């Protein structure tokens, strides 16, 4: 039978349960040290791998930058084209009297042979026309055309005069909206 020997002085010994706990702590310490070393190894490995990858990516990035630099002229053209196109579309969306002129041209073209256009004024808001008709028939036919053409949203009769020598003198104001 094994005999338990304690050669330490009684005051220097630790009690049984505390001794077991201390033994466990010591074992945990060794395990933790192992884990720590493993962790350090892992971190070091990752850092080495990352550094190599980083170097590779940096080289790749520099190479791409150099290739883009060699395409600078193309990039300039694209930037210039984009800039101009954006601004051109702004100009194109600016209102002008071009459409009103086309519409007024249609109205003028419908004038009977005896009618005279004395004045035509176009701005962004309205189109004014002053006309002279020799006969009421011509006037009637013209007004009939204006009524049915539907080119303008609203038409106002701004003047109406009759002179036995020249005929009917009228003023019309056309609105696009």
């Amino acid at each position, binding site marked *: 039978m094994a005999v338990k020997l304690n050669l330490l002085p009684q005051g220097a010994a630790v009690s049984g349960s505390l001794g077991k706990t201390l033994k466990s702590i010591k074992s945990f310490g060794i395990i933790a040290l192992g884990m720590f070393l493993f962790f350090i190894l892992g971190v070091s490995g990752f850092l080495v791998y990352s550094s190599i990858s980083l170097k590779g990516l940096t080289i790749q990035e520099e190479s791409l930058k150099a290739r883009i630099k060699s395409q600078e002229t193309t990039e300039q053209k694209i930037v210039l084209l984009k800039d101009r196109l954006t601004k051109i579309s702004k100009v194109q969306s600016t209102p002008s009297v071009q459409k009103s*002129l086309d519409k007024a041209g249609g109205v003028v073209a419908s004038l009977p042979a005896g009618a005279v256009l004395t004045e035509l004024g176009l701005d962004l808001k309205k189109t004014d026309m002053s006309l002279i008709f020799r006969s009421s028939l011509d006037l009637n036919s013209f007004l009939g055309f204006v009524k049915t053409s539907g080119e303008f949203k609203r038409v106002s009769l701004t003047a109406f005069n009759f002179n036995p020598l020249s005929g009917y003198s009228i003023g019309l104001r056309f609105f696009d909206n």
Partner: protein
Amino acid sequence: MFNKIPQNVKIIINSVFPMLAVLILFAFAGRFGVDKISEMRTKMQTLQNNINALSSKLTILEAVSSSQSQTNVVLSALPSRNSSIVVVSQLKILAGEQGVTITNIKGGAEIKDPNGLSRVDITFDALGARPQIMAFAGSIGGIAPLTLLDKIKINESGGGVRANISVKSYWSELPKSLPSITDQVGTFSNEEKDTITEIAKLTQPLFIELPASDTGGKSEPFN
């Protein structure tokens, strides 16, 4: 000094100290390691994003075909400097083609348009037969630089027709710098391609502005 420490306390210290030391090392080295890993990952992620952006930009640059003629076309449609002289020249040519005489040409000072561009208002009188004047006025929108009809007043008396016409012509400064190397350059949308086709049909002036060229490190590449 250590001899004075009781033996049982020494035993406790001997057992607990390695554990404590490892825990402290873990706390410091762990934090350092995690910080370093996260820093490296961020760097790699940033680099990877840059590479993706650069690759995509390079693909676009290599694929896009922007010819010199397109650049000339857009620059003649919207020049970088006051376009009044070119517009007057274009109007005179157009008037000659339409059998119209233009007189009293007046160009105003530069106006900053609400749309952010610069513009000049030009007024003039056109003399000729009504159909020619109407055709002339109708063709003004077809010249480069882009010119918009602002007002027209036509007076007919004794067979002669005089029209007072006011037009607006635009220009805008060139961009001052290229975007950052990692900024994307867009491809041309169908709408933009249509606009190029449309403005290519404008009557080009006899003299055009020189387009941007390889800058060789100039601070303003377009000037």
